[in-house]
């Protein structure tokens, strides 16, 4: 019995030597994020994007924020301010003018990761932007960014610009959709057309079925995001031109009249959704956005 007591007291001493000062923490390198000596670029991003819009921009290389199995490179420092200025002008400011800062700062994605190159897929295609859960957005191909104000700008550069705006509108629409669901009538219009085989469909073929793009064929909520992003980046007349370009019957037998009617129906539901859910005049927003894009590009 005595021995048992010894053992018990022994165990206590054993456990007591685990106790340590709970306030002492080692200086763990990298805890709390990477640090570096701030440059004017960091200051600009902080003053112009982070403070007014509550958005953090990560431009320094961090493979773990991107896809670790891909070959990518970080952006050129000199491209970041022009690209962010364009984004601010085209994506942020029109929303703030139409719907207010509280609306925008509440729903905008909070974390941007920038990469210099495109994200090349195994099939040879490239991804120019992706998003995670409405919080983090990855923008690629910043090194190819050129707008009207930069030397050497040609009309071929509009592709990269437009893609960036399109990615932002697309991802932002998902966030809005997740907060106030898109109208159920929208899903019904092209029900039965959504397919995982969208990748083998051309844009024109999708439109002949009354679906705005090949990617929009993938799912109803992608269709919704594609409708909004294409309507905003192309503008009213650009969207009308797309609708009017449908002149042939699709492989699945949709006539041009039916395809056009479907797109018009979706357009109306998008406009109604922005009014009912967010009290935003969609056409006014569209005009502002298109105007900003034109100023950036032409």
């Amino acid at each position, binding site marked *: 019995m005595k*021995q*048992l007591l*010894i*053992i018990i007291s*022994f*165990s206590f*001493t*054993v*456990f007591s*030597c*685990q106790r*340590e000062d709970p306030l002492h923490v*080692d*200086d*763990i*390198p*990298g805890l709390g994020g*990477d640090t*570096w*000596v701030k*440059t004017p670029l960091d200051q600009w991003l902080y003053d112009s994007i982070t403070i007014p819009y509550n958005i953090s921009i990560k*431009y*320094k*290389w*961090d*493979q773990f924020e991107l896809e670790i199995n*891909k*070959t*990518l*490179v*970080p*952006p*050129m*420092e000199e491209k970041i301010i022009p690209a962010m200025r364009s984004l601010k002008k085209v994506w942020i400011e029109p929303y703030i003018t139409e719907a207010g800062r509280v609306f925008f700062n509440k729903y905008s994605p909070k974390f941007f990761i920038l990469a*210099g*190159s*495109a994200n*090349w*897929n*195994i099939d*040879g295609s490239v991804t120019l932007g992706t998003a995670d859960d409405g919080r983090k957005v990855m923008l690629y191909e910043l*090194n190819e960014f050129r707008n009207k104000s930069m030397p050497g700008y040609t009309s071929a550069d509009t592709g990269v610009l437009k893609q960036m705006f399109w990615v932002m509108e697309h991802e932002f629409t998902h966030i809005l959709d997740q907060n106030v669901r898109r109208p159920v009538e929208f899903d019904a219009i092209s029900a039965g057309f959504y397919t995982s085989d969208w990748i083998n469909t*051309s844009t024109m073929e999708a439109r002949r079925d009354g679906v705005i793009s090949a990617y929009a064929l993938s799912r109803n909520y992608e269709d919704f995001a594609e409708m909004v992003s294409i309507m905003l980046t192309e503008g009213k007349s650009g969207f009308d031109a797309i609708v009017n370009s449908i002149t042939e019957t699709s492989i699945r037998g949709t006539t041009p009249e039916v395809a056009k009617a479907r797109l018009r129906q979706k357009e109306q539901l998008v406009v109604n959704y922005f009014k009912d859910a967010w009290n935003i005049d969609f056409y006014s927003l569209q005009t502002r956005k298109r105007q900003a894009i034109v100023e950036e590009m032409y």
Partner: protein
Amino acid sequence: MKKMRKKNKILLIIALVIAAVSCKKEEYIFDQSPDERLNETLAGYQAALTSSPAGWKAVLQPALGGAYNFFFQFNNDNRVFMFADIDTATAHTKRESSYRLKALQQPSLIFDTYSYLHILADPDGSKNGGINGVGLASDFEFAFQSASEDSIVLIGRQNKTKLKLEKATQEELDAWQNGTWLNILNFLNIQKIEHYFKRLSLGGATYEIEVDPVSRLIKFQWISGGSLQTLTTGYFLNSQGLMLETPVVNGSQTIDRLAGFSWNNVTKTLQLTAAGTTGNITGATAPLRADTQAPRRWWQEGVTQDSYWYSRNGFRSSSSPDLFNMRSLNRYYYLVYWPVYGENGENDLFGPVFINSAEDGLELLYGAAPDIPTFTADGRIVFDNLGFYGPYPSTGPAYQSLQQLLIPEGYYLVQTASGYDMVSAADARTWISWVPTW
């Protein structure tokens, strides 16, 4: 009773083991905690990087070939200044970008914004001559391997390329700043020579030269004892010039490096020094010795395979990869030559192939029907057109390509790694690269 004691003993042992294990937590083999040691290591590397007053030199060998010289200067504000011998701009313009040290699985040095290092790693093949999606399989995130007073050894984290930084001298820094390297990179002007064939005249000897700047390979051809000699060797650049990995030995003349480059943009002549004398590289209108059987081999191979040769861009020149703007044709896919196309074997086929309107296959909208070509004794192939399939255009890219094909002088054929280059025998300023479909 005895049994009871045994049980106590076991308990005692267990307690002791627990005591031993639980107390070990507080004991480090080293004096400091792992985090303290890691911080110290990172601080040590930081101090090492900034310790060389004239910066660091290094040679980087991307996984897909070539060896590139770099120069780095690091400061304590996460900024790095760089030169590289990739092209004339990188060899002369000091570029500033950022870096940081980070504890990943190992202490690592990350070049975290775009710099000359990233050109080699860029997945856009047009930036570095590599493969789309991979580039040259190079690195810009490195793990520290070791550091001594004069060198720091780094290993790339993604592609395992090795980067050994060695302390540079002031003279080595000056070589970048005062244009010594730029002069060496002037060698790349060889690509501005308008002729397909490039001829080096050096102290009475003549060589045909072909350079692949991406793989950093150079090919010499010369005639010795009446027969054609060929040497293909890797090369690298250093502050002394372009160094051949295997020297050219031609009788008493030995070429182990090319240096002292000077480019004349009017005469399109590259002057250089080699083998102790001054020489010139200029364009030539014909090969040093034509491969006289190549035209027939090229044509016959298509006949044997019962298929065609194709070229994505069509005819080209040194400055224009798509001389007649073939790619501007709507739905254009490639330009083809099909030896013996007709049912009776009377003619060949030449013309552009298009993507069909359903976008699920290729189609031929029109084509020219050249006669079976003439093969000359001096190694040329000459084409003559018999007629057309469909409405062949009378203007535009397809028309211009056909007119080019039918030049009376014909073409030399040069066998390459991927197929054949067909070079105008009129002036060697226009050529087309044929790739087999089989």
